[in-house]
């Protein structure tokens, strides 16, 4: 069976990363912004795993384990903060969370 060349993984990973960055920049709902950040992390995970199999050493896969746990912790803290801000302001729209001015 033929294996998929590494470029394919990298293109997919780059695509996911760009979608994530674009989402962060243009979406206004804090939860959606958060999902886009998760997408960025997963893009990095994908390329780490791909490189790991390309180089034939397990470091990349170990890294992915840690990134997954960190991402979960980050999501937890993030959602908790979003809940806190929702209780205060009854909105999760990033544009309306604007006490501070430049």
């Amino acid at each position, binding site marked *: *069976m*033929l294996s*998929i060349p590494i470029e394919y993984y990298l293109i997919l990973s780059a695509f996911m990363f760009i979608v994530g960055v674009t989402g962060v920049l243009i979406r206004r709902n804090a939860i959606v912004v958060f999902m886009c950040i998760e997408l960025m992390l997963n893009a990095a995970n994908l390329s780490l795993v791909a490189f790991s199999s390309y180089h034939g050493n397990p470091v990349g896969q*170990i890294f992915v*384990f*840690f990134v*997954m*746990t960190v991402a*979960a*912790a980050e*999501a*937890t803290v993030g*959602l*908790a903060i979003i*809940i806190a801000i929702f*209780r205060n302001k009854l909105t999760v729209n990033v544009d309306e969370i604007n006490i501070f001015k430049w």
Partner: protein
Amino acid sequence: MVMLTEFGKILIFIILAIVFVVITLFLNKLIRPNRPTYEKKKVYECGENPEGSPWVKFNIRFYVVALIFLIFDVEVVLLFPWALTYKEFGVYGFVVGIIFLLILALGMAYEWRKGDLEWARPEPKPPILDDLLNSNKSEERKK
């Protein structure tokens, strides 16, 4: 003749599935009669009249439980490699794993003690027949 790789076969399956679904939907659209009425366009809710918006906000306590679950769920990922190489490391590996689990358990105990696992719901008020009758009567009087 071009040789198909395994992935090529999967691609053909995907294309076939999409084409099939699109064609059947399109044929349906051509054949079916289109006579919408008010009743038909309403949201189906077990035959009852729908009440309120379908976009319900979940109780915020669900989120707290979900957050706690999320952390403990994902930490398990770190236990898989440990379990796989458990025998090679012997006592040393065992001690390290136990320390990790103890710290996790400490987090669990912390949440328990702080009352984040309590499902503090409002005291349920059993309906009393007289109240129901009274409220019915008052509504009738209004009419």
